[in-house]
């Protein structure tokens, strides 16, 4: 227990405290109001509001996209198509900076859209606005909300609604008094996560936002920490503000979901009424799904794949302009891209393995969450999910590169692994916790009755039951680490690139086509890992 707390304190809490501390000592003198003073700069307060407004719009956008989809999948015959769930994860798994690059290449002047349909030229310039940015980010984040809403809708089950209609409620009454209140708790959680992910997002603001002049906290923090003139004081102040905002919204979400928490799972069997779709309803439903897939996957991936195969960027769309030369260059053993790929895979598997071990260890220590120490374990381990990645990285750098730090891991591979672990610990904790929560105590008692020793019970009962969660956590951590950008940009040692930084630096100073080829390869590889692991029996999310 103590070890767990110690570990988390070192990994998560201290770095965040370093950020706060640093922002309170702008010129080596204590100033409790320093972070707030930064906000008195009119330029920076605009940036703060930009972040908040963006978060709000994206929550709205992804709700509009996710709600109908969740309804179609939970309540109609469309839900029987299990492949949809896998496909709908793809947008969320696409690194945002690549997705938005795809959109830019598609919509820009003389981009792919104008080359295919010259008539759209009047509308494409309007895409380069806040609206476009919200659209790109909503299309990236909606799967998240969709999964949460769908699961909630499925849990509500038909019986509660039937009970409602037996007592004479009409459809709107049911919607208002039964379904919506039951959904609200889950929705609050999903919306908050979308909000936090939006204001913590770096990729889209760095690519699309910069083009339209929409600057947010994350892009400014990155600017202050990595380009001339460097200002760690301002960066940490902004980071503290970002941290504060996230924690505040987290608290609000907690209040809402506690107020609207109901036990919808009973011991009785559940019947969910699936509405069969026929005729125009079917056309409508499938039409919606088609459009959603077109916008969230079709367009960005079209741009990405075409760009990765272009011989000459200046020659646009033409069959004669396509070749696989960039893939050949990329996959040539020994090339920079190849090394980046190997690095990514290696780092991601080490990070995922360690994160899952720590995660399992923590979950076992959390037990029943009754004592404060167990609850704080839970809270700290989920903290990295609530705090923007860029804030954590700043903290980790401040901590591990401090002159008094005895463990010299800064500027080594270990630092990258450590950062990934801290970043994605919440995923392993959540997945393992979900598995652990399903183990009934009676199983352990049964083991005891038949004379099993503690270790025997752990080995033969607990561990096997935890395996699906552990696998799912590993898979998730692996996939996301392999595509991680912010941390990689800031903590990678010299001479080392991973796929994400390779792609980013190709956009910045090299060959865009080569970068896109890398995007295709790395997304493809990680998706392959997902599919294989899924096949091996990990839980379907």
């Amino acid at each position, binding site marked *: 227990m103590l070890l767990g707390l110690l570990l988390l304190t070192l990994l998560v809490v201290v770095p965040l405290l370093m950020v706060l501390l640093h922002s309170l000592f702008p010129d080596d003198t204590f100033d409790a109001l320093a972070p707030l003073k930064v906000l008195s700069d009119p330029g920076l307060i605009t940036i703060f509001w930009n972040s908040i407004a963006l978060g709000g719009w994206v929550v709205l956008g992804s709700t509009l996209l996710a709600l109908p989809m969740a309804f179609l999948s939970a309540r109609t015959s469309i839900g029987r198509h299990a492949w949809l769930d896998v496909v709908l994860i793809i947008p969320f798994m696409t690194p945002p900076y690549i997705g938005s690059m795809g959109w830019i290449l598609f919509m820009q002047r003389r981009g792919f859209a104008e080359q295919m349909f010259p008539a759209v030229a009047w509308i494409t310039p309007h895409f380069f606005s806040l609206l476009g940015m919200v659209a790109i980010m909503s299309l990236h984040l909606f799967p998240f909300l969709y999964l949460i809403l769908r699961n909630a809708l499925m849990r509500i089950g038909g019986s509660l609604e039937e009970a409602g209609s037996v007592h004479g409620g009409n459809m709107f009454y049911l919607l208002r008094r039964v379904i919506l209140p039951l959904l609200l708790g889950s929705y609050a959680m999903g919306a908050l996560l979308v909000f936090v992910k939006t204001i913590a997002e770096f990729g889209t603001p760095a690519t699309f936002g910069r083009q339209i002049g929409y600057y947010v906290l994350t892009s400014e923090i990155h600017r202050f920490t990595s380009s001339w003139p460097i200002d760690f004081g301002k960066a940490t102040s902004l980071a503290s503000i970002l941290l504060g905002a996230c924690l505040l919204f987290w608290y609000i979400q907690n209040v809402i979901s506690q107020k609207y928490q109901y036990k919808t799972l009973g011991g009785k069997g559940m019947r969910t009424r699936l509405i069969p779709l026929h005729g125009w309803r079917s056309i409508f439903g499938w039409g919606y799904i088609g459009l959603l897939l077109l916008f969230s996957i079709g367009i960005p991936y079209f741009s990405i794949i075409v760009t990765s195969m272009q011989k000459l960027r200046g020659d646009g769309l033409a069959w004669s302009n396509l070749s696989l030369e960039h893939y050949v260059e990329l996959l040539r053993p020994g090339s920079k891209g190849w090394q980046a790929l190997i690095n990514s895979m290696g780092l991601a598997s080490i990070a995922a*393995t360690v994160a899952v071990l720590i995660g399992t260890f923590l979950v076992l220590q959390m037990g029943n969450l009754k004592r404060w120490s167990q609850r704080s374990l839970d809270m700290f381990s989920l903290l990295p999910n609530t705090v923007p990645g860029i804030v954590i990285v700043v903290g980790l750098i401040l901590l591990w590169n401090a002159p008094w730090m005895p463990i010299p891991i800064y500027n080594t591979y270990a630092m990258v692994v450590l950062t990934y672990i801290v970043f994605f610990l919440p995923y392993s904790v959540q997945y393992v916790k979900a598995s652990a929560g399903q183990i009934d105590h009676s199983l352990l008692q049964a083991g005891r009755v038949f004379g099993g020793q503690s270790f025997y019970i752990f080995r033969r009962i607990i561990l096997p039951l935890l395996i699906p969660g552990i696998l799912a956590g590993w898979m998730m951590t692996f996939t996301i680490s392999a595509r991680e950008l912010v941390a990689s940009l800031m903590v990678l040692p010299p001479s080392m690139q991973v796929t994400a930084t390779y792609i980013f630096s190709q956009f910045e100073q090299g060959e865009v086509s080569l970068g896109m080829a890398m995007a295709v390869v790395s997304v493809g590889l990680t998706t392959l890992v997902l599919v294989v692991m899924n096949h091996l029996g990990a839980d379907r999310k």
Partner: protein
Amino acid sequence: MNAMKNKVMKFVSWQWSLVMLLTLSSVLTACGSNNGGNNNRTNPIVTEKPAITQSNEQSDNKESAKAPSGKVVVYTAGPEGLAAKIKEGFEAKYGITVEQFDGTTGKVLGRLEAEKSNPIADVVIVASWPTAMSMKADGWVQGYAEVENADKLQAGWVDSDYHLFGYSASALGITYNTKLVTEVPTDWSDLTDAKWNGLVNIPDPSLSGSALDFISGYLNDKGDNNWTLFEELKANGVAMAGANKEALDPVITGAKSAVMAGVDYMAYSAKAKGEPVDIVYPESGTVINPRAAMIMKTSPNVENARLFIDYLLSDEAQALVTGAYLLPGRADIKAENRTNTEDIKLLNYDWNWMSEQGETISAQFLELFK
């Protein structure tokens, strides 16, 4: 029942603590030693050996960590292809491992600043001469008077006490898309014309050292902090767009028609590839900015760093420089694939003034264009 469960948990957690500690420590040391192995190749022979024997060497090396290490850490601002070739060439010639960080001038400076308390870089190359001068003024770098071939450098491309070595240079011009531009602009002010509205990019001076040099050089030439041109450009929809490549790429694809104050070597190499772009140097003159290589004052591997500087000025590396469409640093070497130094008209500017004003100008420019 609860008591029993607690007991299970206790046992389990004890088990896990042990497992965790073991795995964590083994993973960390594995990473550490792996990296240490790369760092500590004491002699060229090690690099020649097959990978399997290397692990033994590593443990040997770890014990003699104080011995002079066979590496040099170079932070360099693009172009990436050239940097990679120089690294390869140097490693092949001296058997010293080069650990390289590729970035833009801004990124390199940012990284140095972030690592101020724990410096690891030996050689730093930035794409902006004034920035290098201010680094020297701030006491970041050290001199190397015995450098070979310094006398052959272009006039003014090395400072009087041998801190800064301009081993290559780029000139700034207007790169345009040849499919879209029929009337080629002849001077900077042409871009303020209404027909260019919304069609021009300029690199972000906080990310591109060369763009900053152009802006400060231009202001220096016009005198009195005359921002009129830039205000008119802003009014004409000129967009600030990342580092050099990010500013150029939309011109290649046709999303924009021209990039102003973009580095010329990128235009030449894109043109050589067959992309529809070309470059023009404006009539009123431009800025040529030598790319400065420096040895950090805190350099842990000074001897290797000096070898690296020597290498940069050698015939071999200068040939790599011209191969990358950059201007060679040495006056006795001519580039055949591009306009040479003496054929480019320059604005009237003073590096000292630019170096002093650089930071203010960058901030002011960002404020204007953001």
